[in-house]
């Protein structure tokens, strides 16, 4: 078995099972983590999955960000543990200030559900090292509040430091500033994106298998570290 990768289940998470399955398909050991727990059960990386945790009450991710397990996730992320936030997980990472900026309601004011093209802008993260810079991939995008916003200074810093990791191409689906689909922190261990790599790992159910490199990247990173 490969390295242990945990997936946190919050009340209202939807894509935790798909994330666990994607981890297994890509050769790592999936570990289910509970939002109310105060331990990460010895995992080497954590995924915050998609869904509508706490019903999206108040703001998406605003309440989940204070779940007991998040104290451990924040501590581990600050110590360098790879953390990936997908969709609602991205919103939680922004609310937790592990990533800058925020996600607001789509400018088109409807829930968007489509196969979305993205360009890989950086491979210098623990979650994207198996991609090539400039590669265009296609992943499932499904959200109501996926508009990435940040102030001008933050955007300049993200662009300047290569922290924009994924950009929407062939149309901006939700009004995200600079067509940003995903970003990382300064260190590159924390990555958040709105599209869903865990839905694109199996030819039977996904239009592409472009999500696999996310899971293989982190597996390789963790295996080479041991």
């Amino acid at each position: 078995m490969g390295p242990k990768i945990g997936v946190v289940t919050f009340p209202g998470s939807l894509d935790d099972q798909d994330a666990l399955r994607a981890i297994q398909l890509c050769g790592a050991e999936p570990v289910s983590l509970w939002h109310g727990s105060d331990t990460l059960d010895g995992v080497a990386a954590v995924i915050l999955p998609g869904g509508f945790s706490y019903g999206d009450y108040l703001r998406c991710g605003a309440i989940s960000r204070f779940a007991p397990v998040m104290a451990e996730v924040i501590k581990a992320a600050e110590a360098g543990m790879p953390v990936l936030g997908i969709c609602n997980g991205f919103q939680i990472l922004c609310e937790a200030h592990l990533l800058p900026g925020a996600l607001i309601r789509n400018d088109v004011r409807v829930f968007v559900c489509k196969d979305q093209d993205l360009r890989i802008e950086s491979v210098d993260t623990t979650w994207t090292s198996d991609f090539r810079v400039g590669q265009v991939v296609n992943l499932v995008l499904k959200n109501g509040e996926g508009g990435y916003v940040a102030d001008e200074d933050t955007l300049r810093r993200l662009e300047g430091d290569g922290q924009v990791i994924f950009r929407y191409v062939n149309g901006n689906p939700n009004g995200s500033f600079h067509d940003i689909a995903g970003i990382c922190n300064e260190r590159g261990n924390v990555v958040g994106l709105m599209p869903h790599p865990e839905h694109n790992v199996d030819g039977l159910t996904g239009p592409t298998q472009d999500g696999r490199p996310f899971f293989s990247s982190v597996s390789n990173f963790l295996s080479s570290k041991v």
Partner: protein
Amino acid sequence: MARVVVDVMPKPEILDPQGKAVTGALARLGFAGISVRQGKRFELELDGEITEERLAEVRRAAETLLANTVIETFDVRVEEPELAEADDAEADEEDEAEPADEAELAKQAG
């Protein structure tokens, strides 16, 4: 028991899709020349007296959870009890007036 109101609004430079939707709906209903931005109002019931320390605590609560200061601004204000009572009194008067109105309406309808 005292009431503190926290108003949370999207920052001016942040797109407010909900406000835009409401603006559009108002225009369609014939309410012309009205532009809406939509925020949230939180009513906080505080035990005991309101002191500067208590208010500072409410501001901390607003900054920690009620508002995301990356995209929103917030305003904390104490709802004056005298005013609240006056409002209640007014409301009572209206309540008392209502049955008469209803009787009037019933008469008209009959």
